[in-house]
């Protein structure tokens, strides 16, 4: 009797173990097959979903921005005194928050068409440093407003290479780079083509630089963020400006 009992227990245990084994193996088969079809797509799908999400967010934020801008214009056209409006416009012009027009030059930079098999193929493409040099030269020659491919250069603008593109104001740009600068067109042009200047240093590599003077150019407004997170107005400056505002009113 005892023998059959233990035999039964053995059978049951073995059955349970076999059940587990069959279950695990089949589950694994099923999962691996399922994952093979999906795991490669999973990441792409995930990223696509994220991208869509971000794009939606972007669109809604853009709407908010438009709304806020509308509010600002409404407020401005309201009862604000002329003096304040003038001050505001001046400040915006300095900060690059409004589009500006005037005479100036358009500088177009495009990559060299030369063979890329050359040893210094690095030098055949336009780098962030080349753009910075041109901009620096333009500012040095008295440029008052500058934009690159529609991106306004302001005091917080950065120009840097990311892969084959250049990122300015967090916007990805690629060649040709069209730099629009408002200022005295003759001085600006002279500043660029001066002997040993930026044009001289880039042309040997075959980089195409064309400078075109114009009577009327438009530089768009800066569209990026203008809020300061860390920088605060210094205390003594604050009281001064407050006094000034009081005086104006």
């Amino acid at each position, binding site marked *: 009797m005892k023998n059959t009992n233990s035999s039964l227990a053995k059978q049951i245990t073995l059955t349970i*173990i076999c059940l587990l084994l069959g*279950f695990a193996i089949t589950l*694994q088969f099923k999962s691996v097959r399922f994952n093979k079809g999906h795991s490669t797509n999973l990441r792409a799908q995930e990223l696509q979903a994220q991208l869509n999400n971000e794009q939606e967010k972007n669109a809604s934020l853009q709407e908010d921005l438009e709304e806020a801008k509308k509010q600002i214009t409404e407020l401005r056209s309201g009862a604000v005194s002329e003096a304040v409006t003038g001050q505001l416009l001046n400040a915006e012009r300095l900060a690059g928050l409004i589009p500006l027009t005037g005479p100036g030059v358009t500088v177009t930079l495009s990559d060299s068409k030369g063979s890329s098999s050359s040893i210094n193929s690095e030098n055949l493409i336009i780098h962030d440093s080349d753009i910075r040099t041109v901009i620096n030269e333009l500012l040095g020659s008295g440029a008052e407003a500058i934009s690159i491919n529609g991106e306004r250069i302001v005091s917080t603008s950065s120009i840097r290479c990311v892969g084959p593109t250049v990122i300015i104001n967090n916007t990805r740009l690629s060649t040709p780079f069209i730099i629009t600068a408002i200022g005295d067109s003759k001085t600006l042009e002279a500043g660029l083509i001066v002997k040993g200047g930026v044009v001289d240093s880039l042309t040997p590599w075959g980089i195409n630089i064309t400078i075109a003077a114009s009577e009327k150019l438009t530089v768009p407004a800066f569209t990026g963020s203008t809020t300061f997170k860390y920088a605060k107005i210094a205390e003594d400056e604050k009281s001064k400006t407050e006094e000034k505002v009081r005086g104006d009113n």
Partner: protein
Amino acid sequence: MFPIIGFLAGVILALLINFNVPPTYTVYLAMAILAALDSVFGAIVSTIKNTFKLSIFVTGFFGNAFIAAALTFIGNSLGMDFSLAAIVVFGSRMFSNFATIRRIFIYNINAKTETE
């Protein structure tokens, strides 16, 4: 007989439930299955040799599966594939167990034909 029914029941059960192991964890289950299969082969050998002991089989079945999965996990955490150790050991043991089974069967058949 019952164990085979149990195995089939497990297969059917796994097919019926709507659950898939996430890709991250399939490695652990695979390691556990490898260890379990090794135990099964060992059990077959010991049954043939008449040295089968249920307690040894059960502890080996679960213990090896657990250790194999744990080893994989530790290896993943430490940045080295420790599961290779388990794969090699269990794999080679499965082969040697199968070799034993083969030998016993062939000897038995040869012995039978000789007696006839």
